């Protein structure tokens, strides 16, 4: 539901960067969204299309790179990646001594500008 706030924030980051560097407009904005970040990609795309109107990113496409939750188990010393938005214990050995490494991303990382 707060995808609108997220869309506004990412739009501002992109537009500010674009203007600062003296470009005229934005064609593509690439973002990385972790599965554990609580953001729904479809809702974010929908919100982005609404908030971009009237800005230099009006024609921009939003490319969302979804990052799965992954981590490392200190007990069995193995890395894992899961489909779910959270992980309670090591999917291999079941131990709770795990370190989450990816899945919480919420970043703008690249844009195509003109």
């Amino acid at each position: 539901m707060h995808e609108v706030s997220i869309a506004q924030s990412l739009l501002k980051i992109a537009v500010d960067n674009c203007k600062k560097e003296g470009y005229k407009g934005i064609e593509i904005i690439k973002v990385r969204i972790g599965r554990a970040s609580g953001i729904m990609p479809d809702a974010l795309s929908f919100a982005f299309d609404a908030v971009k109107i009237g800005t230099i990113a009006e024609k921009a496409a939003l490319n969302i790179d979804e990052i799965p939750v992954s981590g490392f188990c200190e007990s069995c010393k193995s890395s894992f990646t899961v489909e779910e938005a959270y992980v309670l214990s090591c999917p291999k050995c079941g131990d709770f001594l795990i370190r989450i490494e990816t899945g919480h991303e919420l970043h703008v990382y690249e844009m195509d500008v003109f």
Partner: protein
Amino acid sequence: MKVKVVTHILEANDRIAAENKKLFKESGVYVINLMSAPGAGKTSLIEKTIQEISGKLKIGVIEGDIAGSDDARRIANLHIHVVQINTGGACHLDANMISEVLGDLPLNELDLLIIENVGNLVCPAEFKVGENIKVMLLSIAEGDDKPLKYPLMFQESSALILNKMDLLPYTNASIDKIRKNSLSLNPKLKIFEVSCRTGEGIGKWVKWLQSLIK
């Protein structure tokens, strides 16, 4: 042409949250961000907490709701400094909304500021507002499946208050299951069982809260 940006999308919010936090620290006020689903009993918990410790600590409250000021009126009846924020549709409070109302509170006089977030188990957990800790409330009638359905809030909170314990005989909720799954998500989570209606368990929560405020 490709341009690298690499900026956290919530950077602007986090920056304002850090400013709020600095101001709170300088003013000597401890800040709680209180979150739950609608109807879990956030305002009732605040009322009970105020009744229990207002003689010992100076408390202020910020009420966040999509619309209306019923909650702020309830708190004002207890002669407490309170500010109502209407988010006008937004499902959470963010750092900027808090920053804008801080001038309306006598921060230097307060020991504790409770920020009641918009009723929602998802979005408020994502936005820092400058708080010392996040506290979440789950009424047991909501069901024992909530920790695994809404993991982020359980992971982000320092304390979980299980409210409406007086309703336990009328629900199928298993407190053991809530505890086990919440602690799996967040082993450091402090859990309290209370009933804001009967007052049961409020003392323990308030004692813990007081231990945090020096």
